[in-house]
């Protein structure tokens, strides 16, 4: 029986329109055999809607791309909503521009992986597999 595919939700915070990076990541993960659900940035899709989409789509991991919002404010809130909704076992990773001094802090509050500019896409595939692939293989 074929292994079930890893399901990934990729999203942007509501007002962050820089989509180039996340689209490259989406294609890369698809090419690596994963199912990718992509939520375009929109003021109608707040952080709560993102977590709800993760529930509906039954994803194994959430990837956030943040280029213009404040990563500290956004990710802290996203983690809080995720925990409230009871989705604690779905890890959150993030890519984009992060001030050096915030990285350790973001990891300590529970962000499972952070990818800054210049990251080879293969290393994103590897991290997603190791974080989400416990239950599934792709």
């Amino acid at each position: 029986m074929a292994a079930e595919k890893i399901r990934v939700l990729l999203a942007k915070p509501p007002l962050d329109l820089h989509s180039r990076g996340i689209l490259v990541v989406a294609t890369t993960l698809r090419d690596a055999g994963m199912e990718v659900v992509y939520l375009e940035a929109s003021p109608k899709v707040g952080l709560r809607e993102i977590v709800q989409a993760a529930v509906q789509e039954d994803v194994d991991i959430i990837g956030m791309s943040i280029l213009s919002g404040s990563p500290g404010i956004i990710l802290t809130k996203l983690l809080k909503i995720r925990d409230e909704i009871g989705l604690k076992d779905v890890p959150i990773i993030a890519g984009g521009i992060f001030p050096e001094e915030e990285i350790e802090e973001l990891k300590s509050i529970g962000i499972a992986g952070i990818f800054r500019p210049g990251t080879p896409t293969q290393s994103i595939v590897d991290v997603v597999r190791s974080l989400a692939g416990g239950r599934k293989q792709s």
Partner: protein
Amino acid sequence: MSNEINEESSGEMKEGWENDYEQAIRESPERKQKFENLSWIKVKPLYTPSDVEGFDYEKDLGLPGRYPYIRGVYTTMYRVRPWTVRQVIGYGGGLESSQRLKFMEQHGQTGVSIVFDHATNMGIDSDEEVAEGFVGREGTHIDTLKDMRDLLKDVDMEKGGINIITAHPAVLAMVVAVAEERGIDLTNLSGTIQNYPVIGHTMGSCSELYAYGGAPHYSKRFCIDIVEYCARNLPRWNSVSVAVRNTREAGCTAVQEIAFGIGSALAVIKGCRERGIDVDEIAPRISFFLNSHRDLFEEAAKFRAMRRLWARILREDMGAKNSSSWQMRFHCQTSGDAMTYQQPLVNIIRGTLHGLAAVLGGCQSLHINSADEGFAIPIEETAKLSLRTHQVILEESGVADTIDPLAGSYYVEWLTNKLEDEARNILNRINSIGDWWEPKVREWVSREIADASYRFQKEVETGDRVMIGVNKYVEEAKYPFPLWKEDKDFVRKQRERLNRVKRQRDMKKLEDVSNNLISSCKSGANTLPATIDAVKAYMTIGEITKIYGENSKLKQ
């Protein structure tokens, strides 16, 4: 011996040289597997007259300030008037950004360009939950007319022209209101609003209006409202700036940049025609906002090719009679995409080359990105270095001393022809798919952009495309400048400003302008006059936007 050479035809001479070249690279191979520019066009080792066969100087090149404008839109170009030094500015609120505007002017900036945050462009007030983490971070946040007044307090509105990177009618309305307060005759007010017709989701594009619209035809209405209002009331104001520069940043190629830029500009002209506005009334007020990327000759040729293609299409296909309609004027911002997060100082060198390409290509106005492009808003020191880069190109390098210095180069003219031809093919393709405002065109364009971006990324990862500091000469480099630090207290301050304005408003007046705005939205009249009245009564951008959204439901 010399006789023998003379008797050989140029064709034979070239053939002989080509054989020698083949022979030589069999012995020692070329330094790269492939020589391709960023549009994946193969670049040959040498270009000769045979590559531009049939080239007609008068028809294909001509003279500066004359059709087909390939050599420049103005007769005198930089000999008389250098390009405008227009570094984009925007962070915090009106007061914060106004300080940077002043600093830049003191160091040689000659034009103003303001970028607003996405909250402003989408019409979201600083105290709305969805804006959390975004207010004043990526551009200036504006809630009310008070903020606009603060922003422009030290700007001479009658000099140099103000560029506003937005498609929100209320932002333009606020600029108009401030100009009126200062007693400026609106027929003399010069500037540019981006108002970029639907394509992807980029800064200052009409698609940002999706936030309150949800359909392309909805943003089309507001886009054309702005164009129509400007054509009738602000004759010196550019009502559309085709910001295909940002589309390039999203990953499209130089050829696609030409095609998508011209395609969206033509969509505006056609949209205006539906309202009875003639091409010659609007085309002279369309300007372009282009990228300048890492391949110097490709970029210089791109600007030239685009200028000629625009002139030809406007005159031959669109029936424009006014020569101003044929002239493609453009502002250029160098590529951020071609800059790196690694070894940031190298970005200063890149910025110099990208700026040089824009100048060789005849830009009217230019922004050169700063060393810290990959991190944050530039700090004062790096922003000033960008100004100095302009100044070195203009005042030391000599490249601006003669007009269109690359003209006549076999390579550049061949490449210019090639880019023009390929861009025309893409435009034909778009026409065969449908109308620019239709979602299916937008989807096709978005996919093309994403495909090109992915292909480029893969080439970087395999090392086929070298990016210094990313996949070659990699090292941990010390960076001598501090990085921009946002004021963590700013959002609180901005909300306080907003509340203060709200408390002092005349509620009766507010109700009147609100009713007026609602009826203009519903009736299908131009929304600008009512929006101007609304901002004067201190209606917030969020309140205005909600009225737009609730009262402008279109059938289409």
